[in-house]
């Protein structure tokens, strides 16, 4: 595992079924069934849509019809939520097969998954659960990412988690762990700025410090989202990665700093519950686009 394996996207395939819409320097939103009618009523605009892969793993019907139509006019980002890459058990081969089928079918501009796990033995817990950061977990997460990348024939972007607890058994920081994963697997990164802010607040470290240690040069996509506030056992602030409201001011500020360093990078606004009317979500994406455009001149030498 000394030489990083760089897998090139196989988008030039002669069998391409969709236009190769570029996603560079664009802002996008989660694709929600509630908004489809409004989106189809509009003329195609600058921007992209991200879908949770699992919602399109049925055999047919309206979900595939809608995604096919969206993909004709827009770049699509395929975001896996349930691969359980961070779990100790082998990946679910059937699930990996379904994921590969979606990559082949929709030719997404971006493909991502999470540094987390959700399945233990045969039970699926439907949440992004945390893992300790050790040499042992590093080895099996890297194996899982290799397996996914081999299956789909292109690199994935790995997303940093929001976490609420720590494992005292961890022997390295999250940023060291992520750096090592990139080095071993050649994967890219999906930097969720809201998750950085949530985890930094919850664990009492500096979000800017995290970003200083984080390998920004490997970031291929950014996530922004809203969070909610609770308190921990000591009565201190505990942030929840709730995706149920607008992006917070502190997260916008961090995003601006990230873009000033990394250059304009595809950026997605996530909103998954208490979903607002389409114009409100679209306005959040436009706010991100303004920041991207302001820094777009830096794109040429950002190495994206």
């Amino acid at each position: 595992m000394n030489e990083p394996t760089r897998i090139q996207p196989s988008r030039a395939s002669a069998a391409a079924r969709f236009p190769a819409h570029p996603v560079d320097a664009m802002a996008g939103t989660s694709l929600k069934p509630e908004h489809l009618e409004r989106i189809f009523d509009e003329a195609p605009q600058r921007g992209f849509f991200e879908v949770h892969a699992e919602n399109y793993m049925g055999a047919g019907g309206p979900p595939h019809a809608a995604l096919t139509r969206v993909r004709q006019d827009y770049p699509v980002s395929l975001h896996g939520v349930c691969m359980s890459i961070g779990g100790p058990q082998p990946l679910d081969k059937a699930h990996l097969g379904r994921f590969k089928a979606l990559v082949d079918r929709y030719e997404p501009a971006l493909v991502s998954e999470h540094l987390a796990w959700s399945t233990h033995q045969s039970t699926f817990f439907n949440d992004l659960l945390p893992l300790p950061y050790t040499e042992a977990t590093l080895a099996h997460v890297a194996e899982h990412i290799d397996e996914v990348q081999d299956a789909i024939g292109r690199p994935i972007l790995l997303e940093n988690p929001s976490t609420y607890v720590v494992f005292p058994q961890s022997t390295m920081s999250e940023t060291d762990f992520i750096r090592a994963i990139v080095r071993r697997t050649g994967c890219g990164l999906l930097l969720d700025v809201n998750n950085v802010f949530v985890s930094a607040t919850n664990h009492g470290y500096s979000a800017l410090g995290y970003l200083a240690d984080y390998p920004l040069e490997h970031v291929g996509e950014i996530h922004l989202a809203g969070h909610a506030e609770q308190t921990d056992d000591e009565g201190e602030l505990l942030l929840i990665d709730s995706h149920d409201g607008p992006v917070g001011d502190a997260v916008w500020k961090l995003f601006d700093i990230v873009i000033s360093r990394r250059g304009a990078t595809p950026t997605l606004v996530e909103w998954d519950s208490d979903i607002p009317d389409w114009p409100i979500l679209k306005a959040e994406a436009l706010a991100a686009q303004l920041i991207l455009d302001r820094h777009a001149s830096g794109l040429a030498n950002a190495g994206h």
Partner: protein
Amino acid sequence: MPAIDTYAAGFVSALLDPERPAPAMVSGPGRKAAAKRYGVYRNNVTVSLINALAAVYPATQRITGPDFFRMMVRLHVRATPPASPLLFEYGRDFPAFIECYEHAQSMPWLADVARIERAWLDAYHAADAEPLSPQAFAVVPAERLAGIVLVPHPAARILRSRYSALAIFAANRVDRPVTSIDAGEPEDTLVTRPGLEVFARRLPPGGAPFLIHLIAGEPLGTAAAAAIDDSPDFDLAANIASMIGAGVFIAIHWGN
């Protein structure tokens, strides 16, 4: 140091059981406690799964009201968490759970309403297929008709109920006030999705055994005999016309 695979087993040990303390393997930063912090995961798991079943069973929730529904579902989620990451597959055991749930005994039709909702979602996600055209049927020579075998559309489902499950389902899948329904009339339901829209319609007498036999791959003659056995006034021509119109089948085999 614990073995590589113990963190997952340890972490999930209390996820579905609010009576158990947070696993000792996790903490807050420094010396902070992890009870409320671990509780975030516990809450995420249970609430997201309850929400998933609320999305599968909206009429059931409308009938019971959200408080009753969420209490009933919480018990089911903790006893029967999903075995697949595909949440639209989750909840197949839920109608049977409703049937046994003590507080739902006054609504004996509720489980069948849930069964129609489950079939509706299965039809929604089923593979796309072009339904059989009336012309394909018209070319079969009359003497071969009894021997034909039909290939069902992947979305087609038949549900039999001793109650007015379809009427109750239909009245509660729309955002309109429900008028009084006589729950005691047995109803058979056909769920199909010939194009992108799912339909749930009531079958005439004998229609359910007729289609159940055909979907199982038995010849038309056998299915018709079963239908007449079930309902002597079974109308073969009318049932054939409506099953074609509803898109229940996609291909016809008349033996070579």
